[in-house]
């Protein structure tokens, strides 16, 4: 039986993959695909439109003030008006998140390869990694702020790197280790040295796990960056912007910024999906779903 424990958010990302794949395949296939696509998503789209309309309608009807519940139209208006500002701060945050993501992922992959190779290292590190993964890692933010300085972007990048490191390391190590025993025996029968086994069997086998954890990491990196920003620092970042707007009770502005954060997150995720298609075209999950 597969160990579900450490494959974080596995089911979640499969569903999201389905949602994105659906939209991706529409462009590639013909009429029947479009019909299937709309058939599958129509209830959702209808539900969404209904919710938006009801939301707008009720808030107008009862003249709900924007600090209680902003109207969708107000949020959209703010989104358009403050467009350059929020995308600007969004970009700054994205840079922190992406840098931390790269740093954390690189360290995680390096550690995973080592842990897969040497049992002693693994037995020491893996339980600790699982435990540390359960800690509120973002609590490191104030320490990093003091170490590297509030204005130094590395204080935020560092937090992101640590947050991303653990899930990627745990999942990638798992992927490197859960190899089909038959394949290992095959390699053994041709007297393949450990590096060859790593290259030809373990790494390809680990790729699905790796990408699964990468997808989780994209969301985590953005969230970690924003949280790290809350503990103080320059103002031209998403986290500070959101909190400042909120403290001034300018909620439509704050929600518009959150919308930007979500969009950036989705774009980042889509980028990884693309990378996945490039590196793993053979995989089961990449095949066209009926």
């Amino acid at each position, binding site marked *: 039986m597969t160990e579900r424990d450490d494959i974080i958010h596995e*089911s979640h990302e499969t569903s999201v993959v389905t949602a994105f794949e659906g939209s991706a395949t529409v462009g590639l296939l013909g009429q029947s695909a479009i019909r299937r696509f709309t058939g599958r998503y129509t209830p959702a789209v209808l*539900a969404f439109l209904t919710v938006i309309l009801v939301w707008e309608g009720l808030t107008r009807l009862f003249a709900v003030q924007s600090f209680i519940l902003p109207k969708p139209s107000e949020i959209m208006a703010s989104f358009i008006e403050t467009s350059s500002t929020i995308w600007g701060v969004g970009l700054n945050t994205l840079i922190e998140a992406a840098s931390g993501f790269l740093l954390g992922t690189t360290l995680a992959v390096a550690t995973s390869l080592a842990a897969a190779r040497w049992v002693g290292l693994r037995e020491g590190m893996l339980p600790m990694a699982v435990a540390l993964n359960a800690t509120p890692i973002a609590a490191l933010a104030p320490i990093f702020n003091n170490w590297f300085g509030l204005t130094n972007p590395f204080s935020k990048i560092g937090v992101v790197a640590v947050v991303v490191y653990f899930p990627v390391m745990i999942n990638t190590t798992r992927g490197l280790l859960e190899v089909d025993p038959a394949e290992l025996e095959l390699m053994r029968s041709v007297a393949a040295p450990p590096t060859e086994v790593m290259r030809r069997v373990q790494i390809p086998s680990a790729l699905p796990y790796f990408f699964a954890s990468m997808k989780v990491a994209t969301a985590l990196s953005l969230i970690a960056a924003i949280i790290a920003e809350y503990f103080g620092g320059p103002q031209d970042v998403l986290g500070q912007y959101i909190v400042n707007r909120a*403290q001034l009770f300018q909620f439509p502005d704050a929600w518009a910024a959150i919308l930007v954060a979500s969009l950036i997150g989705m774009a980042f995720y889509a980028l990884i999906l693309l990378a996945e298609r490039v590196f793993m075209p053979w995989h089961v999950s990449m095949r066209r779903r009926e």
Partner: protein
Amino acid sequence: MATRGMSRATRSGLSIIAVIVVFVALWEGYKLVWTALELTWPVRPDNRTVPHTWDIVGALFQPAQRNGPPLLWVELKAAFLTLREALVGFLIGGIVGFGLGVLFVRSATAERAFMPYVVASQTVPIIAIAPMVVVWGGRLAVPQWLTVSIIAAYLTFFPVVINTVRGLRSPEATSMELMRSYASTPGETLWKVQVPAALPYIFTALKVSAAASVIGAIVGELPAGFRGGLGRDLLQFSQQFTAAPQKLFAAVIIAGLAGIAFVGSVTLAEHRFVASARRQT
């Protein structure tokens, strides 16, 4: 090293101790070597920036404020407060999430209509906007602990729904046919076959949500003047860093332990309800 003979628990315990020892060694080693070589990058090795590990531990047993109770006690109380908020939301989110999961498995229409939202909701970085939600709640005169609980509920709810659906659908087709051959009602099939099969999936989601709830609770405490919670203390000690750096480190350690304790409890519950029957030798 001959570790074969030991039980898994002993081995884990030893490896934890080993890692702590290694960590302390690296920490102190860094200070020693960097000081000797007079390096200051990436972090200065002086006692202000990188206190000795024993100073950090020592700080826990000293008063946080003049004539006050020891820091350890203050932080444990703060952790308790923070965790309590998270726990309420976590439980509610879990139960409601489970219920919705069952609904989705029973009604394909409900699933098709609402599941994309469940999935899309994961893209809204709720943990990240926790402070904003708290401010919003404050403006609406909602007590802070309630807002934080709602945040925890949100964080738990969606992963639990997705994993419940997956788990309820995981039994083999033959198991379901077997139940049909007994003319069992849908309710019986649900509780006797589907739910037990779903438990491992649900607990996986719960463990992740538990960790997220703790972070959400801490972050939610940041903007408002919420005295006595972990988030607030982290911020405060951060400001007092130049005067007393050990307090921040100590608080961070307690926060980390709080997270581990919460997730650990869920793991224990998992062992109680799930792993016993399924543990493969």
